[in-house]
């Protein structure tokens, strides 16, 4: 009896230690997702279709989540200003189509066009964030919102002419959604796509993400990368060591913005549509909560956090609607998604930041 109790004590102790190491919220979400996977086949959902859906959604969103990493590293906090990067991406996408590129080529043309735009916008954004150290997150949010609403006007006013993109009857002003068929729809996903029964794996997209993640990892281990991390974890020390703090932060913001632009292009090629106007407004929040679910905090993030977080978040987002619908015939997924993702951000914001930041 006593032995039993002792064993339980150590077991619970061990579980608790593991839970602490892994992070309780993450554990709960992982458990929830696992439950979904187990339940899905029993309620009449094809297991492999579900798996492919999750992998697909993962491949669409992973780079958007990766875009969080540089700014967290340099101590600029969570990049709520991701819409700015997304806008550069959208400009790249629409300009590439306007210039007459088609097929897979249009994807790379879009990246090429989006790059200078995102660098310029990112530089301005980074300059602003350097002026307001300490209040980054709130201002980032509103920079994102302002730029999106500004672009709402621009989408109507800019002189686009390509008939696939403008409103048919007016002949001007971009449509709210633009189909990418004939352009870069599945440009990456179709590359070396694996199909086994109902299982579909978008190899190209995953490889592209792997490449980006690797580059990010490698960058963080270069001299510049480590300097950036130093700026994030201890700005005073970094300054004393001769690192130009403002330049590092600026660089990280540009990098984040560029990755945001890239991320939206990858998202579009998977999704098959360009969404303009109000669509980018709240795109930062899922990415932010994804990386937090992956175990990142306001000032610490790794590539592993991106991987785990995107998988858990997108898994939850894809699985809950189908499973919920077949189990209780109530679509509560919407509510669950909002509560979980926002709850996660709140949890991260209320935790004391390590190193006593600000």
């Amino acid at each position, binding site marked *: 009896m006593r032995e039993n109790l002792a064993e339980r004590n150590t077991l619970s102790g061990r579980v608790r230690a593991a839970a602490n190491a892994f992070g309780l919220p993450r554990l709960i979400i992982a458990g929830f997702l696992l439950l979904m996977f187990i339940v899905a086949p029993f309620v009449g959902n094809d297991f492999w279709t579900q798996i492919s859906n999750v992998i697909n959604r993962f491949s669409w969103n992973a780079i958007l989540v990766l875009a969080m990493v540089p700014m967290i590293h340099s101590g600029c906090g969570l990049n*709520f200003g991701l819409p700015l990067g997304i806008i550069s991406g959208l400009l790249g996408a629409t300009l590439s189509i306007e210039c007459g590129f088609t097929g897979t080529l249009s994807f790379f043309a879009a990246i090429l066009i989006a790059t200078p735009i995102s660098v310029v916008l990112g530089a301005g954004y980074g300059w*602003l964030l350097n*002026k*307001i*150290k*300490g*209040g980054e*997150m*709130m*201002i980032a*949010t*509103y*920079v994102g*919102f*302002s730029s999106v*609403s*500004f672009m*709402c*006007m621009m989408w*109507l*006013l800019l002189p686009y002419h390509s008939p696939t993109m403008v409103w048919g009857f007016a002949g001007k*002003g971009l449509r709210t959604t633009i189909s990418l068929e004939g352009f870069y729809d599945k440009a990456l996903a179709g590359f070396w796509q694996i199909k086994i029964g109902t299982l579909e794996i978008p190899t190209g997209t995953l490889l592209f993400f792997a490449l980006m993640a690797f580059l990010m990892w490698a960058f963080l281990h270069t001299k510049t990368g480590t300097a950036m991390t130093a700026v994030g974890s201890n700005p005073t020390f970094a300054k004393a060591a001769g690192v130009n703090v403002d330049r590092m932060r600026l660089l990280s913001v540009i990098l984040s913005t560029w990755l945001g632009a890239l991320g939206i292009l990858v998202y579009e090629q998977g999704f098959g549509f360009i969404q303009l106007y109000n669509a980018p407004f709240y795109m930062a*929040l899922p990415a932010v909560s994804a990386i937090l679910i992956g175990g990142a905090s306001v000032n610490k993030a790794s590539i592993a956090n991106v991987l785990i977080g995107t998988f858990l978040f997108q898994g939850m987002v894809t699985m809950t609607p189908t499973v919920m619908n077949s189990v209780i015939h*109530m679509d*509560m997924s*919407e*509510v669950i998604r*909002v*509560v979980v993702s*926002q*709850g996660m*951000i*709140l949890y991260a*914001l*209320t935790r004391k930041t390590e190193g006593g930041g*600000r």
Partner: protein
Amino acid sequence: MEEKKSFGAAALEFASNNIVPILFVVICAVCIPLSGFSVSYLLNEIVTRMGRNIFLILCLLIPIMAGMGLNFAMTLGAMAGEIALIFVADWQIWGIPGVVLAMILQIPFSILLGLLCGSILNRAKGREMITSYIISFFLNGLYQLVVLFMMGPIIPIKHFSIKLPRGYGIRNTVSLLNMRQCLDNVFAVTIGGVKIPVLTFLIIAVLCLFIVWFRKTKLGQDMRAVGQDMEVARDAGIHVERTRLISIVISTVMAGFGMIIYLQNMGNIATYSSHSQIGMFCIAALLVGGASVDRASIGNVFLGVILFHTMFIVAPRAGAAITGDSMIGEYFRVFCSYGVITIALVMYETKKRRNKSKTAQELARAAAEETAKEAAK
């Protein structure tokens, strides 16, 4: 510090401190003639919107006093108000009694939500704004859970005109036709075609008096002390956490009242969207009035409502007049709301940094003098 400033420098300083209101005056001055609205129509609209919105905006003042910045979580109070109104509509209580009942009913809800919000914000000192902003989203999820799934089977809602046909959840719009403008119509006076909702303005006046009085109470003084410097206030024996909590609770309860006033004027509840933008519009209006993150007065509220809503009314028509597309104006006013908040936040943060570095310089100079004295000895 120079004692006297030349007139030009003073004017420049005034302009840089009040850039947002000045900008808005210019926008309005350009847009009003372009929109082609008649003066009486414009006045009527502005007066209506003043009655509708001022109460909601006033509730932002108290958290600012306590140094907690712009309370984006005022939407929590709005949600409480909406839930109360849904119940009242379900029980078919009409007219002014319905409004009064809803106001009483929302108090416990908003106190609860305010306590929740306040205790979360106490754990996120220094980033209250972004946290309160996320709280408003988080609670919106919970609100949907309650209103869309629990109302019906768990929380009794019997009225067919409110409930979704599937048997649970509330419809997208709940009609408040039977209490529409019932407050506004009491003692309403029409002067030159402009209807003035006297009772609503009286209620607002009472609230303004309350705020003025509140500033002078012990609690109000404590709040200002906490807002100035939390550590100093704590040393002076003030319960910092408790004071902050109370300021949020008061704000939330007041937002609940404000939302009920707002909705009785509108005459229906958009169950899932009425509250979501209210925070943003109220904050934008307050900032347009020249308030900043750490300083706001009742005057800012009134000026802000007038300027912001004038812009709001005239922008679509003016946009259509300029570009031939009314959507441009719609987007323009949304852009203005967001842009104003952005500018105000940036100005606040830069000022804060400048002050900080100024004090740091002064400290450094003092320290240098000390060492020089030491060396002289």
